[in-house]
């Protein structure tokens, strides 16, 4: 076992533990903070996969923006921030069975995929995977269409959110 594996195991344990805490914490604020730790654990796993760009983007977007927005919205709903009720639903056995079955199906399909059993190759130190990623996002042979579609979708969502939230001038005059 080398150092990288130790780091991976630690990161995986931390993110799994905090993921469990996200759903079992009684205060919503604590759940949001555990979620931050989970996301950071995922960022560390990206680092161990030599994908520093994704690690940094994970922190920038998820910890720096999305988690903070979640915390904002949790703080603005102070009344329901603490949960005293029973944390386990009445039908938890059936739900657990369905989740287990789904997990089995997904893992079963994953094993059919060739990449599942492929041995990871260590990248050379000067590999420019960032440049490759950038090229494949904008090249017609790569993912330019999905990339542009996702951008248009996001802009539409943004405009929609503004349309709903905006204070119209004519409403104020009335």
């Amino acid at each position, binding site marked *: 076992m080398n150092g990288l594996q130790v780091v991976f195991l630690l990161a995986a344990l931390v993110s799994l533990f905090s993921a469990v805490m996200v759903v079992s914490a009684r205060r919503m604020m604590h759940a949001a*903070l555990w979620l931050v730790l989970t996301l950071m654990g995922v960022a560390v796993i990206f680092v161990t996969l030599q994908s520093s760009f994704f690690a*940094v983007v994970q922190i920038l977007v998820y*910890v*720096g*923006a999305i988690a*903070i927005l979640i915390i904002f919205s949790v*703080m603005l709903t102070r009344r329901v921030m603490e949960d005293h009720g029973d944390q386990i639903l009445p039908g938890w056995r059936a739900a657990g069975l369905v989740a287990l079955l789904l997990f089995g199906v997904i893992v079963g399909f994953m094993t059919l995929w060739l990449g599942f059993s492929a041995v990871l190759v260590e990248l050379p130190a000067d590999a420019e995977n*960032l440049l490759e990623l950038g090229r494949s996002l904008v090249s017609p042979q790569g993912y330019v269409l999905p990339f542009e579609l996702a951008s248009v979708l996001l802009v539409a969502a943004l405009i929609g959110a503004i349309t709903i939230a905006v204070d119209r001038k004519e409403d104020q005059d009335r």
Partner: protein
Amino acid sequence: MDFLRDPFGFVIQWYVGWLSGLGLPAFGVELISKLTGALVLATGAMLFVVFLIWYERKLIGRIQDRFGPNRVGPWGIFQPVADMLKIFTKEYITPIGADKVTYNLAPILAVAAVLLLWSVLPLSVTVVGTDLNVGLLFLIAVGGLGEMSYILAGWGSNNKYALLGAFRLVAQLISYEVPLVLSALVPVMLAGTLSVTGIVQAQENVWFIVAAPAAALIFFIASIAEIGRSPFDLIEAESELVAGYNIEYSGLKFGMFFVAEFLHAFTVSMIFATVFLGGWRGPGAEQIPVLGFVYLMVKTFVVYFVTILFRGTLPRFRIDQMMNLNWKVLTPLSLGLIMAMSIVGGLTRQLPAFWQVTAYLIINLLLLGATDQLMHFAQNRKTKLNLATQPGKGVLTTSSKHGSGE
């Protein structure tokens, strides 16, 4: 002679050589040397804050026509040391109902987030913490960790004023991150790399502040907003918020927020000097690496001086003015700048470097001028609209108020 030209690099090489001489495996040598480097850098940066606090207080004093600290030591240089010793002896107070873990984690995270920034900044040719290939993105992402610490502090304190202060601060930080990231893209485009070392290397012929002054201006304004300095110091509006997110902290915990703020201000100046002013570049810096360190420090202090001048002279923004400036001026300008720069860069690809830089400079100045005109236009229209909605009320200027010759 080697020691005189590059003392830091010499010591690092000697230390790594000594470690591998002990018979450790290569992995262990790297781990121990990196850990030592981190420890030395972090301690040095924290101790440096003592000097920074004195420098800033002295300078603000001069701006306000006072002496500043002048009792302890020559020119009062040991005043922060005395303050530090005093803060060590203060009592820790934990407010009732505080969330203990988040309350105590926040100051640590605040300092750690700033210290992490130093890990990718190249201090000279030979002294770099780590040359990440996504260095610039890392610098911005780590800023997000700082935001987390403010939220933790505001929420953990169980105090409404602290919570409101944290809300306001984080809203400001998130908003100003947008123009910060967008304007940082311009040097990335010019250098063709995200690595901070690569960006410094790419400024061999011309500093990026010459090629992209508009981007430098946006980056500078946004980074002042990121450190919450005047004129963006709404977080410390005493009349509204008492003192912001850190009011429930005392003793060393408060001191850590204080250290984080000063160190962040200096680090942000250093990032600006690295990205736009050529970092350690200067005559003879490659042959004599210690000169590069001196150049970087001089440039950083020039930028830091300007932020202190801002702090000493400018009045505070109102929150709507601050948000308007961000979303209606800086963000569209930086988006337009990225497009203009990439178009100009594509058109002038065949030209020699001198003409390319000139073209960049012209398009930057054009955009800045156009923004200025648009802002004037909007201001005039707003004034006219206000006048039109209030019939019968003239403009209350100094001359009409006092009359003529009364």
